[in-house]
């Protein structure tokens, strides 16, 4: 066969592969919907779970996941914001800056179970917060720190120089410049980072499964030392009863809810990110 035919075959092949990849991933989503939807009876999101999770809904699990997420962003945002601003506005030593950037990457790639282990030791034992939603939020906060930092840094660094020059020309102090110019202009990047961080925290199981959660007995936490039920650990426990159709059905339902939450947050983050891009191109 000649070269042109050979090429067409190769092209068709990799085209097929690409199509299959997309199809596979759609299939996965499809399976999740097919299996999860039947479990999502009317009150699923608002009922509490019954019979060791084999019946009922996931209201308190969803609440627990949301509480951990919100707590994580609460602790993480100031640190991320402060550290990025410090690095971009005040730090001059290039080597130190590169070092800090490397640290961000390493923290980002660290296996999350390690956050759970060390986090329990540091927060749970040394700072005596025990196994609680506070410990969980703190651990998740450290985990999503790089996610927030990357987004904020991108927003601050792509800010056109003319804004800063204008500030200088007006004789503003640096603090004022940061407060009135840089922060408002990088708002969208900040929100993108927060939403991505929330999405990441929502899906995290390993870091919280022995540091922040309980399977039963708690509805809403009533003190700072209470653990919480979460969607992720709920699914984990049910997944281990793979032979029981009721458990698995509940697991699928909870999984669909979790997936929906993560997708919602990711899509929201994107919509903000496009606005960021549009702003910086003005």
């Amino acid at each position, binding site marked *: 066969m000649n070269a042109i035919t050979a090429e067409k075959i190769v092209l068709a092949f990799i085209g097929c592969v690409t199509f299959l990849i997309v199809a596979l991933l759609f299939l996965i989503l499809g399976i999740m919907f097919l299996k999860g939807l039947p479990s999502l009876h009317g009150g699923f999101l608002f009922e509490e779970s019954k019979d060791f999770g084999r019946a009922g809904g996931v209201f308190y699990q969803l609440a627990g996941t949301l509480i951990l997420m919100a707590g994580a962003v609460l602790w993480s945002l100031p640190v991320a914001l402060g550290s990025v601003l410090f690095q971009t506005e005040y730090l001059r030593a290039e080597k130190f800056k590169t070092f800090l950037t490397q640290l961000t990457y390493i923290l980002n790639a660290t296996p999350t179970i390690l956050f759970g282990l060390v986090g329990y030791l540091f927060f749970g034992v040394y700072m005596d917060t025990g196994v609680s939603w506070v410990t969980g939020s703190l651990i998740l906060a450290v985990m999503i720190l790089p996610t927030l930092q990357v987004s904020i840094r991108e927003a601050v660094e792509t800010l056109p120089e003319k804004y800063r020059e204008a500030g200088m020309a007006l004789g503003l102090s640096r603090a004022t410049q940061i407060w009135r110019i840089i922060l408002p202009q990088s708002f969208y990047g900040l929100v993108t980072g927060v939403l991505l961080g929330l999405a990441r925290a929502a899906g995290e199981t390993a870091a919280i499964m022995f540091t922040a959660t*309980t*399977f039963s007995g708690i509805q*809403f936490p*009533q003190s700072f030392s209470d653990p919480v039920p979460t969607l992720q650990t709920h699914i984990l426990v049910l997944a281990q*009863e793979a*032979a*029981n159709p009721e458990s698995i059905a509940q697991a699928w339902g909870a999984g669909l809810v979790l997936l929906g939450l993560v997708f919602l947050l990711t899509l929201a983050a994107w919509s903000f990110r496009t606005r960021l891009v549009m702003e910086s191109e003005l």
Partner: protein
Amino acid sequence: MRRYVWGVTGLVLFFTMAFSSFTVAGPGMRITIAGSTTVLPVASRSAQKFMESSSIRILVNAGGSGVGIHSVAGGRVDIGMASREVSPDESKRFEKSNLKIHPVGIDAVACAISSEVYDAGVRQLTPQEIADIYLGKIRNWKEVKGPDRQIVVVDKERHRGTRHVFMQYIFGNALQRTPGALLVTGSNNEEQAKIAQSDSAIGMLSFAWLNDDVKAVALVDRGKEILPTWEMVRQGSYPIVRKLNFITAGEPENEVKAFIDFVKGPEGQKIVEESGYIPLGSSQP
């Protein structure tokens, strides 16, 4: 901007609602329980019943007998659940914790096999045969009068109560190594799932977890066949029996004592029976 404000307001409202139940009283009104998945249904259902007439909150978590003992010794929980005794090694390690054991029920451990193997005729095994299976010396069901299929040997995590008790009976050593194992599972639920999913598995399971897909074999001891039934357990003939224990560090006080007394009392014992176990005092140990 307005959407942003609404979003934040919504979040604030959500959290106000969530945290509105924060009491000033704090965690003193709370009992934490963790450990054996065998004891867990008893603790969980009793907790539900107990909380109907009390303002105390009771948290129940799984993890396994080892986790239960370790957690209560480390002061992380108020009650540790264990489906076995505290091992000599653990007693030594946790000497300072002054562990006290409170039995709340009785359970038996079955040598469980996949229903397909059971239906094909394997109804009994000798302890020696079981030992050889777990050591990897017997690999096919046909060697024990079963179908021609390789045996899927399901083992459990080392600290699990069910494993300790089972291994103690089969090998005389609670921490016996089992080179013939193919898989390792954790909770009773996981073990049950793996045996049910396979069609040639063998494992160790509490009586309460047996079902249509997971059947128990009779044990043959000194030529006599011992059926795996509650009858046999009550008569004292079935050899693999254990107490379901609540373990505390030191003597229990106040709410913890009240709860343990509740479980040991008539209402609690009814729950023990409903959960598939034997109440205290109805068999000879």
